[in-house]
């Protein structure tokens, strides 16, 4: 090594350079410090990752939980919108333990008889004041044909008030009329989904469809329902996509009868249901929850088995609101605990980092670093650490609701606020828990720090 000589000196290398006047905030310094922070975190990859796990879990859990609870409350609101605030829905439900013998005299001997009856509805109407209307429906699963095309769908026999009662609007044509109900008319209104399936090209209005051996004139088409699963058929289908058609209640009764027969693995299964569902409209929403309870009492008295279900949308909404609040409190608690744990983890790792780098701190101080430069350095490192944790958490927190939706079919909604909030909090955690180690680093005596092994 013979080259260890100073090359001929020109004038001072700094002669024509000027430091930027204000040293309070300097971008070059900030960038350098950030680079140092990233290098330090990167050089302890696994350790850094384990450190931020608390933050990752906290942030991910909060976002995912809020997404699930948001989804649940959206679903409840959807039901609320679909059914209306002042409505009560009563459905026939096949009881858990069915009677093998028939209650009424007619129908095949094996027919299971259950569910709501017109007599139930009459009793409800007569004994509860404030009921403005009752829309009773029969829902039968049928193959519906347009020439060679067919679709298996729910045929809803109902009354003229059905669309109004459910805030369900027509896209084209009209609903059937009172006189068509009176006359057991062969008229039908298709849901948008069925219309598209059976009439992919031409306009179905004015055309006919066939159910069993009867032809029905298409008079109207409803608008698309979206994914609402309410009013789903009671005839045993688990198909959740709504595909329905509507015919007059009277027509359903006279064309299909009250007993439906299905081919099952164990042979033929028949059931006799007079009404599949009834929408009971109450005047004003104030008493709607109480009316729901009274209906339940009446039906309990009149039915041996629990072969009906009552849904009060307003009650559902209240429940959803309550459970959303509960979810938010749980999410908040989880967030609080994980972020605390994450923060302590960061503090711990930063203290270790400060100790490990005591000598470096001494060197930097000797070379002109002010206290605030050192504080900044470690604070930035802590914030990067928690920020990276927060970012991983956000990614997971957005991915988890997707997985939940894909595998369990739950509605989840990630509002933009949740990730932003969670990420900001995680960065804040870096500041809060990084400040003490940073101050400790800055308060070191330069001489002692330089002597540190």
């Amino acid at each position, binding site marked *: 090594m013979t080259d260890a000589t100073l090359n001929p000196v020109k004038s001072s290398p700094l002669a024509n350079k000027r430091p930027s006047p204000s040293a309070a905030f300097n971008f070059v310094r900030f960038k350098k410090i950030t680079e140092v922070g990233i290098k330090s975190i990167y*050089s302890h990859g696994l350790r850094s990752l384990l450190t931020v796990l608390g933050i990752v879990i906290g942030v991910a859990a909060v976002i995912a939980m809020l997404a699930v609870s948001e989804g649940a409350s959206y679903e409840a609101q959807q039901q609320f919108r679909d059914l209306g605030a002042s409505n009560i829905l009563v459905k026939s439900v096949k009881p858990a333990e069915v009677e093998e013998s028939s209650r009424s005299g007619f129908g095949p001997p094996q027919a299971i008889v259950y569910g709501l009856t017109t007599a139930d509805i009459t009793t409800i109407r007569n004994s509860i004041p404030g009921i403005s209307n009752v829309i009773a429906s029969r829902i039968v699963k049928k193959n519906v044909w347009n020439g060679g095309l067919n679709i298996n769908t729910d045929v809803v026999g109902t009354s003229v008030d059905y669309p109004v009662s459910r805030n369900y609007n027509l896209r084209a044509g009209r609903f059937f009329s009172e006189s068509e109900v009176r006359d057991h008319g062969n008229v039908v209104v298709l849901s948008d989904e069925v219309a598209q399936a059976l009439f992919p090209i031409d306009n179905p209005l004015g055309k006919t469809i066939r159910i069993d051996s009867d032809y029905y004139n298409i008079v109207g088409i409803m608008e698309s329902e979206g994914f609402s699963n309410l009013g789903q058929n009671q005839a045993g289908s688990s198909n959740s996509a709504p595909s329905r058609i509507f015919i007059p209640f009277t027509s359903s009764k006279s064309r299909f009868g009250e007993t439906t027969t299905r081919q099952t693995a164990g042979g033929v299964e028949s059931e006799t249901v007079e009404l599949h569902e009834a929408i009971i409209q109450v005047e004003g929403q104030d008493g709607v929850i109480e009316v729901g309870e009274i209906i339940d009492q009446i039906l309990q008295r009149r039915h041996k088995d629990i072969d009906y279900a009552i849904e009060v949308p307003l009650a559902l909404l209240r429940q959803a609101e309550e459970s959303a609040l509960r979810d938010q409190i749980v999410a908040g608690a989880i967030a609080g605990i994980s972020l605390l744990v994450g923060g302590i983890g960061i503090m711990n790792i930063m203290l270790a980092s400060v100790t490990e780098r005591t000598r470096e701190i001494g060197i930097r101080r000797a070379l002109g670093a002010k206290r605030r430069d050192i504080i900044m350095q470690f604070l930035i490192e802590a914030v990067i650490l928690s920020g990276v944790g927060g970012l991983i958490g956000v990614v997971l927190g957005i991915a988890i609701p997707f997985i939940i939706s894909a595998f369990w079919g739950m509605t989840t909604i990630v509002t933009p606020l949740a990730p932003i909030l969670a990420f900001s909090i995680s960065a804040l955690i870096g500041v809060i828990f990084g400040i003490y180690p940073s101050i400790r680093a800055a308060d070191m005596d330069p001489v002692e720090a330089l002597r540190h092994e």
Partner: protein
Amino acid sequence: MLETESSPRPDSDAGVISGQELVASLDDIRKTYYMGALSVEVLHGISLDFYQGDYISIMGPSGCGKSTLMNILGCLDQPTEGKYFLGDQDTSKMEDDELSSIRGARLGFIFQSYNLIQQLNVLENIEMPLFYQGYSAADSHEVAMGLAARVGLEDRVDHKPFELSGGQQQRVAIARALAVDPLIILADEPTGNLDSKSGAEILNLFDELHDQGKTLIMVTHSDELAERSQRWVRLRDGLVESDDRRNT
């Protein structure tokens, strides 16, 4: 410690060279370390003047207070009593931030154990004092490249300190100390960790710096190395024992 009869005040005249600028002046510097109830005075009143272009060796037995004095000269530590003027500034009343500024702007440090930052490469180590002074990235880079070349390490700028020999590391440290063009270069046993050959190379660099008019203060145990400087300050038990200058 036995307080001797007002010990012969070190001959301050030894340092005076007519026409030369005073760069640092110590006036009756005392340093006491406190350890709980115990207190130990390590420096008992040191007065020394240093001039522009001086090349000083500070010598003395182990524990006599050489490093303590160097720390005070380097504004890393404050004297318990006495005044220290650096240039025309009285440092004894300075706040921590001012001391940091003065270290960064006017002093260059060379340590026995090099004290390079291991995560940073040669160039980044040399640049560091510059960015604490607020120089732009481009300026810092240019200056650091020039200095790396000056100490003969232009082909090693991307290397990390652990990839270099001790002598090379110390040369990086010298380049770093020169970065801000300091008033004084302080070197506490700069060759203490080096073999004699690498040590001699470092001393060659010092000779050149001296020739270029830099002010150098070096602590050394070796008479042979001290031989190359112009002025020798001997400390004993926290006092200046002798202060001699080469007669030219």
